């Protein structure tokens, strides 16, 4: 049995009251006990001591199972007492066990793997998601689009003609015109394509609409909406560890850069489909030209392109222009009557909800 104290450099709190004791320490190979005249604590086995780190050069220990119990030393504990003591935790138990630098190396490898997986996995996973799930999800989201879908027998036939020409073997479940005042088209989960009415009414020709529609068909074929959904889910989980702002920003930027890649692929599909259907790509090129000037001109668009969801309009325009064969005789995508049926679909459909934004 060895002893130390009592002196001012060794103190004890019993966790019951805030009174500070200066005990005598007695210890052997099996354990230790404290004695301060008015009371005693122990004997306790060595294993019950818990080191409490970061106490400004002092050494402080707690006792397992007795909250508030503290044994403190002004400096390091007496040498032959210290040999029985565990080391204080530093970075965290796992990291202390393998060492800081090795832990950093290991975490880096794991992190790189996780990032790679989350970024590339959606591309592999999406094709294996059953079409029926995707269809059900799309139906749940869209329904009848709040009664905003415009359809007449003639417009339906015209859209069907375009579908057969531009995506004969793509699993499209519906192409519809929606009475929404925006120059845009969207592809929803479940192979549903919506052309907004202002896109149709502001198009200069059916060929132009065909180019945009073929682009959306490209999204359906590549299952881009499903891939984007899975990716978004993965990124939100992955970036959940960071605090809100940083995570949200990185998430947005990454999602956008993937979206640009998908848009380029859809453009390539559109170019091929137009060629196969013998439709001129030049009107579509002109459409991107108009879109570009809406977005503030090429310079502004390029400056902000790293945070845009779509590639720069000028690039898209050039790609469509390059695909045109000089001197080749293209056929119009639709006859004049068919085109008129599409343009007038929303005015001719008697029971469509009137145009407006969503609210």
């Amino acid at each position: 049995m060895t002893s130390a104290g009592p002196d001012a450099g060794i103190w004890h709190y019993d966790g019951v009251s805030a009174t500070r004791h200066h005990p005598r320490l007695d210890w052997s190979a099996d354990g230790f006990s404290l004695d301060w005249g008015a009371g005693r604590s122990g004997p306790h086995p060595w294993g019950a001591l818990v080191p409490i780190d970061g106490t400004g050069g002092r050494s402080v220990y707690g006792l397992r199972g007795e909250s508030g119990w503290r044994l403190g030393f002004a400096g390091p504990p007496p040498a032959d007492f210290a040999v029985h003591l565990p080391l204080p935790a530093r970075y965290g138990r796992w990291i202390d066990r393998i060492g800081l630098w090795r832990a950093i190396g290991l975490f880096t490898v794991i992190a790189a793997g996780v990032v790679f997986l989350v970024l590339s996995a959606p591309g592999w996973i999406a094709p294996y998601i059953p079409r029926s799930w995707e269809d059900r999800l799309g139906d749940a989201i869209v329904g009848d689009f709040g009664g905003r879908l415009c359809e007449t027998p003639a417009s339906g036939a015209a859209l069907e003609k375009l579908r057969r020409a531009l995506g004969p073997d793509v699993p499209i479940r519906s192409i519809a015109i929606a009475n929404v005042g925006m120059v845009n088209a969207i592809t929803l989960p479940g192979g549903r394509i919506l052309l907004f009415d202002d896109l149709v009414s502001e198009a200069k020709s059916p060929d132009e609409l065909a180019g945009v529609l073929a682009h959306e068909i490209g999204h359906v074929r590549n299952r881009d909406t499903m891939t984007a959904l899975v990716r978004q889910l993965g990124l939100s989980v992955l970036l959940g560890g960071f605090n809100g702002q940083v995570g949200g920003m990185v998430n947005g930027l990454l999602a956008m850069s993937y979206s640009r890649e998908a848009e380029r692929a859809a453009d390539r599909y559109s170019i091929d489909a137009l060629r196969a259907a013998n439709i001129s790509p030049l009107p579509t090129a002109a459409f991107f030209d108009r879109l570009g000037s809406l977005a503030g001109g090429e310079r502004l668009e390029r400056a902000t392109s790293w945070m845009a969801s779509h590639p720069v309009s000028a690039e898209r325009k050039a790609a469509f222009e390059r695909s045109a064969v000089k001197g080749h005789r293209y056929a119009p995508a639709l006859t004049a009557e068919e085109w008129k049926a599409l343009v007038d679909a929303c005015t001719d459909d008697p029971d469509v909800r009137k145009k407006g934004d969503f609210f």
Partner: protein
Amino acid sequence: MDEQGAHAFSFHGNWRDYAPIAFTNLLLTIVTLGIYRFWATTRTRRYLWSQTQFIDERLEWTGTGLELFIGFLIVLLLFGVPILFLQFGMQAMIFQGYAGAAGVLALLAFAFIFYLSGIARFRMVRYRLSRTWWHGIRGGSDDKGWAYGWSYVWRYLVSAIALYLPVPWAMMSLWNQRWSKMSFGPYEFRADASSASVYWRFLLFYLLPILIVVLFFGLMSMMSRNGALFPTHEGDPIDPRAAGLIGLFALLVYVGLGLVALVYYAKFFRVAIGGLSLSTLDFHFDARTRDWFKLILGDIALVVLTLGIGIIFLSYRHWKFFVTFLDASGEIRLSELTQSTTRAPGQGEGLADAFDIGAI
């Protein structure tokens, strides 16, 4: 134990001692994709608490990274899933023409989140007190904060309806309500600060935006008397006076409003902490507006000059500021300061973390 004259609280930390903690925290947080930040917070607090002396003994932080992480996971499940559902569901409802119902649902969701953010504020204080030890004794609360959450909702609702004029009352009464439910050892905190004395400074903050707008339009109409100030045709050169006016406006909004907010907060904290007592101990907080101003200016300089890396030292600076200006007077009988009987919460401040509620 009697404490007169000298500051009851003192801080012994040194940024050079803290730097290795801060940098390894940053490194580990990056390579673990952010997950280490709970352990990083814990390491930082252990250091800051252990360097903080109250009368004759240092504080001790016993919270763990795992607790914070579990708190985070619980909140992720509680909110992540409904929010995800709400996002998709809301979109579907709007698409299908039920925009009105979607709006009502969004409003309800917002109210619920507001309620929870009130509870988060309460629980953050409770968690921190329950993990703070001094002389082997800890703090805590027996209240879970549900009632506080409602109080938070209705007080701010009333404030909004009354054009935000009662905001100082809402802030102060909530502060009092929150701290009155807290305890350390066997003693409950008492908080009875009054909002009357902070009201003038709040009015300053309230009226400044109106003043700025009046000034802006006054100057604009004065200057437009001799010719249009802003170009009426595309391609016209921009009048330098117009550019100057817009610059002045931006300066007034950002710097002026920030400064006046500081003027208000400085007083608010002095009054709020000044109304706080524990048994026979009365707390004081002496930081004046210029001290806060120096703190914020230092923060900005540090972050800008280090190209952002300095952010990792902000929690250190803020804690040091808080401890330096915190004081207590009165007497404390150690033998009567017995162990807290409150139940310590099982996990960390996940809710507050989710709502990004920072706090001194």
